[in-house]
């Protein structure tokens, strides 16, 4: 990949952030007038309900083990819900349904949607359920909401996502669990003592959850490294992309563009109002890191991967009539969406490559119609591999059964406010952040169509087209 295209700047070979500092940002944005050259004036269809995003918020995304460390997942979700209540001013009983996405479940609050809703002060008459689909869990929460509204079941739904990696369920070994469960059933003291006596050191080894595929036993980072190698993405390209993500996030944060973030007074600690994982570094610093997964010749490092993050997000989704009736000015229309899935071993993280052309086809748009792209950045190598896959006729024909490539999204429209690499990636919460960011960027940049795409464990993927609400 040519360096200038990667950086989204017109200047050849020179990083547009000017070396190590982030002060000199100048991004040339294309301010396209509405509906000038689009394939379609709008994606509104007669007989299909318009569904809108009223607003979206999120807690600051923090590296796990930092300020949120002593909370529980529903605390984060609760904060996002309260933030949404405050931001939208919606009455606590005007919502018909609440859906949350999460990946690693706290067993005490396995339906975290319900616990968070109750704790956030929503009416206890609002049903809530939790969905899971790895890194696209909150996308699944949102599209479930869209489906309920489209089907006429609901008019106003809150969807969100939460992930809390500061504390994960670490289990006793199966042997130990079996002994402990038998202990419950043992009737006599003798039987209990015999069971206790059967405990051996091997019983005591705990079971840790791993970010690994169940089917292939491969960790995601390892798969990402193989993917980068398969597409010939170099270490340098990955480090450059990661640096871009952090630099853009820093700028967005400094310029106050991340307006979806709501402050959080953490009990016993300070008010948190900013994401804390944004750290623009230098290429030299990043080059020093050793590969994290494939040793010694791998290319994926801690610096060009997303990190373990705590955070929650929430969006308010309504039918357009309902939103207007309640006096809202919606932010965007949620239009077509698709889910895709592929081989969880060799194509684990290629979801966006499969989902993008499919959702464009569904909505009758071309890649050039899209003004704003927000892709989930699991790994720099994964993003760059997807860009290469989308730009390859051979890949489109051989693996996707398409006649030609869809094309690679231009980087001057791509993840301009940072991404999961820099802002953080609470697995269950990222989807809502992507959609809200598209809505905000469309408004800020004056675009009409936005596209969200994400990969997820299990070899799955998702994409959604979002249309700006007329100003």
């Amino acid at each position: 990949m040519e360096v200038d295209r990667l950086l989204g700047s017109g200047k050849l070979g020179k990083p547009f952030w000017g070396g190590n500092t982030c002060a000199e940002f100048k991004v040339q944005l294309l301010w396209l007038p509405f509906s000038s050259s689009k394939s379609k004036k709008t994606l509104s269809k007669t007989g299909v309900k318009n569904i809108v995003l009223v607003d979206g918020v999120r807690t600051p995304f923090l590296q796990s083990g930092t300020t949120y460390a002593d909370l529980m997942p529903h605390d984060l979700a609760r904060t996002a819900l309260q933030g949404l209540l405050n931001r939208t001013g919606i009455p606590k009983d005007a919502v018909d349904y609440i859906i949350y996405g999460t990946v690693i479940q706290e067993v005490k609050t396995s339906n975290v949607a319900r616990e968070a809703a109750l704790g956030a002060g929503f009416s206890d008459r609002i049903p809530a359920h939790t969905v899971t689909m790895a890194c696209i869990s909150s996308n699944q929460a949102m599209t479930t909401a869209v489906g309920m509204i489209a089907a006429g079941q609901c008019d106003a739904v809150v969807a969100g996502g939460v992930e809390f990696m500061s504390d994960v369920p670490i289990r006793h070994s199966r042997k130990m669990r079996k002994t402990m469960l038998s202990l419950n059933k043992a009737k006599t003291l003798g039987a209990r003592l015999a069971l206790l006596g059967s405990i051996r050191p091997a019983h005591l080894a705990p079971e840790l959850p791993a970010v690994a595929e169940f089917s292939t036993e491969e960790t995601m980072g390892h798969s990402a490294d193989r993917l980068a190698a398969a597409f010939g993405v170099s270490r340098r390209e990955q480090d450059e992309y990661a640096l871009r993500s952090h630099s853009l996030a820093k700028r967005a944060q400094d310029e106050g563009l991340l307006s979806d973030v709501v402050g959080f007074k953490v009990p016993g600690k300070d008010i948190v109002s900013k994401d804390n994982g944004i750290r623009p570094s230098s290429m030299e610093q990043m080059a020093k890191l050793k590969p994290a997964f494939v040793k010694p010749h791998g290319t994926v490092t801690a610096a060009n991967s997303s990190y373990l993050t705590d955070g929650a997000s929430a969006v308010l989704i309504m039918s357009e009539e309902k939103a207007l009736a309640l006096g809202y000015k919606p932010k965007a229309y949620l239009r077509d969406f698709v889910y895709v899935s592929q081989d969880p071993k060799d194509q684990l993280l290629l979801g966006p490559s499969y989902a993008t052309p499919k959702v464009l086809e569904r909505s009758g748009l071309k890649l050039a119609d899209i003004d704003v792209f927000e892709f989930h950045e699991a790994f720099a190598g994964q993003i760059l591999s997807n860009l290469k896959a989308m730009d390859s006729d051979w890949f489109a024909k051989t693996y996707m059964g398409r006649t030609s490539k869809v094309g690679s999204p231009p980087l001057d429209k791509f993840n301009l406010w940072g991404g999961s690499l820099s802002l953080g990636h609470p697995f269950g919460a990222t989807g809502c952040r992507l959609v809200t960011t598209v809505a905000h960027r469309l408004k800020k940049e004056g675009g009409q169509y936005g596209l969200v795409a994400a990969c997820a464990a299990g070899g799955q993927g998702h994409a959604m087209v979002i249309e700006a609400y007329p100003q």
Partner: protein
Amino acid sequence: SVAVKSLGSSEGLKSEKYMQTTFTWTHVNYEIKGDVAVIRISDPNSKVNTLSLQMQKEMTEVMDEVMGNSAIKSVVLISSKPGCFIAGADINMIQACKSTEEVTRLSQEGQKIFEKIEKSPKPIVAAINGSCLGGGLEFAIACQYRVATKSKKTALGTPEVMLGLLPGAGGTQRLPKMIGLPNAFDMMLTGRNIRADKAKKMGLVHQLVDTLGPGLKSPEERTIEYLEEVAIDCARGIVNKKLALTKEMNMMQKIQDHVMSYSFVQNRIYSTVEKKVLKQTKGLYPAPMKIIECVKAGMEQGPDAGYLAESQNFGKLAMTPESKALVGLYHGQVACKKNRFGVPEKEVKTLAILGAGLIGAGIAQVTVEKSINTILKDITEEALNQGQHQVYKGLNDKTKKKSITSFERDSILSNLTGQLDYSGFEKADMVIEAVFEDLAIKHKVLKEVEAVIPPNCVFASNTAALAIKDIAAASKRPEKVVGMHYFSPVDKMQLLEIITTDKTSKDTTASAVALGLKQGKVVIVVGDGPGFYTTRCLAPMLAEAVRVLQEGVDPKKLDSLTTGFGFPVGAATLADELGIDVAAHMAENLGKAFGSRFGGGNLELLKTMVAKGFKGRKSGKGFYIYQSEPKPKDINPELKEIVESYKMMPNPAVSSDSDVQYRLISRFVNEAVLCLQEGILTNPVEGDIGAVFGLGFPPFLGGPFRFVDNFGADKLVEKMKTFEEVFGNQFTPCQLLLDHAKDPSRKFHN
């Protein structure tokens, strides 16, 4: 050969300041990438690379050129063939040699080439993807550094011992130094393949490279490129001293190495290994002892003596009949892995199996493993449950051995449907029945099945003795009926014997062979007749074994006589494994068909055993008693009484140990030759393969036909005539054997 020079233009490298030049030979070429020469090997005439004379010649020329070029600082050696680095030396090259000296010279030339590689001032990195065997492994271990892909196809090994040879190009000298005596002996004496992860642990390779999925090129192509890129980095790393050539050892390994350095420890290992080898080979296979001898020579007297011993022993072994027989089996096995009946019109995508017993479930296991939808049907839930459990257990054992993951096991099992009815049979492409060996039952299921299967569906009968034409007599479409004789345990035994009748269509045969090959079987196709080929050869030998027992030889002695001749399992144990009832049934049926020629031992002895419940291992008692612990097994004490009542007086003229062995083997061999004479067998190759892979005929003898060639038909006939005088027509040599005895120039194998 003349080097053809042309400018390379591999894209993606343009921007880097590489001067690229590509030289092209036919088998070996090289490209210069900066200061690294990448030598690529690919035999244009074969799917695999072998160290043929041409390959060696070109390699020497290329190496000379690379070594002479001062711009080149290091070398990467890689194959451009997917799935194969170098599969070994060219067997034909060795076979073409006429004398020990000639083979020794070949070995010495190989040693010289690899010595140059080992002493190369420019580091050479072997980049291994796929099979790296025999001479290929010896080449790789002569290099300074080895990188291998984690591909399932990557296998490192020294299979020479399986061909009655030894690693003759420095292998016996380098391997012990590299991986230690115990591991080196394990590899060289068993010939087993070492997978990439194990090779890394053993210190056989330095680095592993992941296989890649789809990218901008096919996974295979890109994986090789990636391997090359990593290998180039390694080569530069060695030159820049960033990569250490000495292996990192943990404390345990250091202690082990230290202990191994004492000569009394080494001597202890030699004697242990020698004892083990002698016990297993009964001294019938010369190669393992020679391997130990070569290693010892190198360790005790230094490299010169070691290399000399290696080349001389290699020469000697190549000329042994054992090696020739094993090489013959290798070629035969390759031939029996091809479908000489062509591609069937319809591939088997759904297979239905009737009968979930040992064989039925075994067939199911080897079929689901190849992602073929498999219906396993039985008539009782209990039998079905047991069959399904057998399949699960077979796969789960592989999970325990880590050859498949638990997920793969589950995914494989999802191809299996167990049921009690005929639902889904309308989609079956082939039905294999493995029900009880009874013609009436076979007819019943054939009719039931034909009522539900589609017109193009093949009906295969798994039977050890019933004639296929008799089974097909009940069929509306005899052209679709074929016999498929599997051997138990199906997942372990390599042979499949396919039986065709006059009416079986070529496409039906092609379909059965194709399925067998897909199941990983070595397939022989034989004509229809009582006992087909394998059972027919086995029956007279077992009849003779019974007579030997009646003459007062106990089962243990009988077993030691048979294993002493080279059979992996003794005759008495074999009968117990087979089932005494099955053996009796088989002997009775074949006795009816072939008359007194199949006599000898008294069938009533077996019948009495069956009546008393001594049905072999499955019933806990047979010739031996089987308790929970399989070894050591004792002779069934109640056997003595039964044998006593059928006692025969041995004739001392034909009852020496050697006589007994030849009585057993000659009846087997004569029947095999008769099968060829009668056209049951198409050729001697399939006869040898069937006997070795299905019945355990001593592999070093190469099968009954190779045995006749090597032993001499005249000598065998002479022995048989002595026996004939005592026992009668059971030892009358068949006409074809007599023909060969008369004319020593007539051979079954060229």
